[in-house]
């Protein structure tokens, strides 16, 4: 798509043919009116030229958001954009040029059937984690007492609140206690909880599970479910992450130590104190972890039984399910 209308460049104060030679300044606003399609095509091309990943999707989601939707409606493509809308698109797309994740640019993203506010540096939920919620929900619904009793769940490292709020939304009998060591995460979870009107069934605490586990135990025992997507990346791998993650997301939400197991081991060590008998643990982990975790638990945490490993949508071993043994009865 070629468009030859003139641009006013704020940098060199010249009106003339479009020139993108100013590498340190973002693209100038178009002078005349353009259509949504032209904005889409322009930014897709500009992202490509600037080495921004997912140029077509980035452009699409930002333009869609500016037009008030989640995806762009075909019939809106030929509509001319107002000055305001054009400026907004330019402003947001310029942020994307700095490799800011789309979710932070538009300040929202979807997780299962929920739309959540997103804000740096709070960790952006990954699609794999939607599967973690499914696992927990399936087991919750299969529990014999699921119909009447109130069940409590503990989430360690709630981030934006995606997992906790998703569970609450799908399970009316559930109460949740959510923890995060990041103040920003705690605030964002509270904000999302209020917006989704789930604040009455969730308690959110600013606690570091590594150093304040006892405090955490006192806030919630006993729970029938412990769920976590703890930082599980290997420290060495963190250094090679894409700019979207390195520049904008909280490293504490990612780094699990040299073997990625630091926080996982702490969770499994403390779990027996928090869980009721036969309570379940659901963890998202690195694909290399499951056999290591199984071995480690069998050697170090007698009260827990390793139940199974479940794959993610790409068939990678991703989820570990464990259970607190019923005292004196469960021998194996």
């Amino acid at each position, binding site marked *: 798509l070629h468009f030859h209308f003139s641009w006013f460049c704020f940098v060199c104060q010249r009106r003339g043919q479009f020139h993108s030679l100013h590498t340190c300044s973002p693209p100038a606003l178009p002078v005349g009116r353009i259509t949504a399609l032209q904005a889409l095509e322009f930014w897709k091309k500009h992202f490509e030229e600037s080495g921004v*990943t*997912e140029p*077509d*999707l*980035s452009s*699409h*989601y930002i333009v*869609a958001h500016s037009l008030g939707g*989640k*995806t*762009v*409606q*075909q*019939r809106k*493509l030929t509509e001319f954009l107002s000055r305001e809308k054009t400026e907004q698109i330019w402003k947001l797309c310029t942020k994307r040029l700095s490799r800011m*994740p*789309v*979710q932070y640019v538009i300040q929202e*993203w*979807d*997780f*299962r*059937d929920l739309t959540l506010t997103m804000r740096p540096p709070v*960790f*952006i939920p*990954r*699609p*794999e984690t*939607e*599967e973690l919620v*499914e696992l927990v929900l399936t087991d919750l619904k299969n529990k014999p007492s699921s119909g009447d009793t109130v069940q409590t769940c503990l989430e360690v490292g709630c981030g934006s609140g995606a997992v906790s709020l998703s569970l609450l939304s799908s399970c009316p009998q559930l109460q949740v206690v959510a923890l995060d060591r990041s103040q920003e995460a705690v605030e964002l979870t509270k904000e999302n909880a209020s917006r989704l009107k789930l604040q009455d069934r969730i308690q959110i605490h600013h606690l570091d599970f590594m150093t304040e586990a006892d405090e955490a135990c006192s806030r919630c025992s006993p729970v029938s479910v412990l769920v976590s*997507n703890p*930082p*599980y*990346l290997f420290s060495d*791998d963190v250094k090679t*992450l*894409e700019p*979207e*993650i390195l520049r904008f*997301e909280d490293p504490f*939400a*990612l780094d699990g130590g040299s073997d990625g197991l630091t926080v996982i081991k702490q969770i499994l060590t403390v779990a027996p104190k928090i869980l009721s008998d036969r309570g379940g643990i659901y963890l*998202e982990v*690195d*694909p*290399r972890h499951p056999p290591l975790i199984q071995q480690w638990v069998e050697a170090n945490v007698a009260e827990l039984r390793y139940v199974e490993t479940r794959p*993610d*949508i*790409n*068939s*990678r071993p*991703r989820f570990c399910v464990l259970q607190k043994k019923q005292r004196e009865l469960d021998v194996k």
Partner: protein
Amino acid sequence: MALLLSSFRSVFSVTCLWVRTGSPICPSLLTPLSPPGFSLVCAAGKKQLADLTELNEEELEEQFVRGTGPGGQATNKTNNCVVLKHIPTGIVVKCHQTRSVDINRKRARDILREKLDIEFKGKDSQVVKLKAESVLKKQEKKKKSRDNLERKKQFKRSLVTDSTEKNNIV
């Protein structure tokens, strides 16, 4: 069977990754003016969908492109396209309608069920019948509004002739 399926999956995933580096394997995100082929998913309620045959997960192969590497926390991508293949018939459904993978997976399955219904039942398929019903309803509506318009015109004409008659009576 599960072993065959998992090896099938790995073959399929390699193919998908290779295809991904070229042109996008998923259709445009754009919400179309009218969905290609009649889709019950948006229009109908759960009751109608429930009449379609259930899917057997063993016969399905699902692919979600997250690229090479471990995925999970190590990657932040907005691509959540789901590709669902029905192995016995070779029918492939791609869904990129929403920003949630989970919902795209569910919708892909709903769309696949509709396609299988058409495939197996032909003109007896629920989907085809409902579409025919909907087309018929639209035709009836159009006919009704045309008839109404015609009646109004008739009435107006009769008013004019009445008044001219009156004028002629001196």
